[in-house]
């Protein structure tokens, strides 16, 4: 028999912090602000996540990785993972640790605001220069744009700003 251990929220969250973005191994789904709700009843865990972009092909992978990680917890017999749209994910949900992890990977954190003419600014994640140009709002994944640093001459990516007052 397994040793009884209470599955509290803190324990579940610390386990979820081990689940990384499938493409960015320096950032966890907790850092990205994707965890909306965790609950445990006896030996059953239920986790509700917020999808970053609705068409993101990484979502089923994240769902599977979460369930597998949670089942490693002592005292966990079942783990249910589902996504909700009841609260939209916004880029300000990325935590301080998430911002550090993104920079470490060479991705600029999302800009904090967009000007009324649609323009926005981020600094180069490599050298910190503000002398950057947007090459393409749309990048290799739904959540990232492509930029170029005119100071250190590195191309880099930035997470897109997603906020509820965009219309």
């Amino acid at each position, binding site marked *: 028999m397994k040793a009884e251990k209470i599955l509290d929220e803190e324990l579940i969250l610390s386990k979820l912090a081990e689940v990384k973005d499938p493409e960015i191994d320096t950032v966890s789904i907790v850092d990205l602000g994707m965890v909306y709700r965790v609950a445990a009843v006896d030996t059953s865990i239920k986790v509700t996540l917020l999808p970053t*972009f609705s068409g993101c092909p990484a979502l089923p992978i994240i769902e599977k990785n979460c369930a597998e990680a949670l089942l490693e917890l002592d005292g966990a017999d079942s783990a249910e993972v589902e996504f909700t749209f009841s609260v939209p994910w916004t880029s300000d949900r990325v935590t301080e640790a998430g911002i550090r992890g993104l920079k470490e990977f060479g991705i600029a954190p999302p800009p904090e605001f967009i000007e009324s003419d649609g323009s926005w600014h981020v600094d180069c994640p490599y050298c910190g220069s503000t002398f950057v140009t947007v090459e393409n709002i749309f990048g290799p994944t739904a959540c990232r744009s492509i930029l170029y640093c005119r100071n250190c001459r590195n191309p880099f990516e930035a997470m897109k700003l997603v906020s509820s007052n965009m219309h």
Partner: protein
Amino acid sequence: MEKTESGKFEGLTETDQAYLADLLKQLADDDYLLSFRSSEWLGLAPHIEEDVASASISQDMMGHAAMYYGLLGDIYGRDADDLAHFRGPADRRNSILTEKRNGEGEYLDVPKYDWAYHVVRNLYYNMHKKVKLVALKQSSSTPLRDVAAKAAMELYYHELHWRTWFIQLMNSSDDAKARMAAALEKVNGECADLFHLGKYSEDITRKGYIAPASEMKDSFRKEMEKVFDQTDSVFSFPDDQKENGRLGRHTEDLEHALELMSEVYGSVPYAKW
């Protein structure tokens, strides 16, 4: 597909579910079809950055279709993938504008697609979608409100993209202007049903699921006039056309799209994707 919450429409009467289902089919089939038509441009767009942008937008649109099919599946107790792939033309509620071919030829043969048409079609569609999402964010149906809020944030970048292309090409060379004029004429013959709300239109608006078509059309007109003000052309919108996709009356192009789109999924329907 990832697992999403279910049981969101419990407690609704069967007639209300039928109204909502028809509206969801309009929204889902629109994004599904135009996402497919746009993805046929993959590798053919005018330049490499546009290829990336266009593909990314198509992926977002397919995500929006998936959210709507997810809600529809919740009502019907059916799988979202099946609802996307295994419904025939008569059951489709997308606008004619979203189903039309990109131009002459086939993707796998010699595609002679028309970029001007792609730009104009996407501007009209995305602006119509923007207006609709504003209305849906006020819907009396909570799940619809939630999904609309999500889609609207992503649409922001799409609409900006197509608006930029449109204004630039409309103010470009004589060749570009002539192609854009031809594309505008073509789109004008295919977009009259965009704001049609289908056979239950009165019930759908009475229930507060979405604003009346006339209101949305007015907002659309205002938005489009702002765009056209930056060109030498004057905005016009058709009153009527022969086919009406919202009533399940489509062109041959829909069958062509559905066949191609479902070929792989239909070959092994029980496969895990």
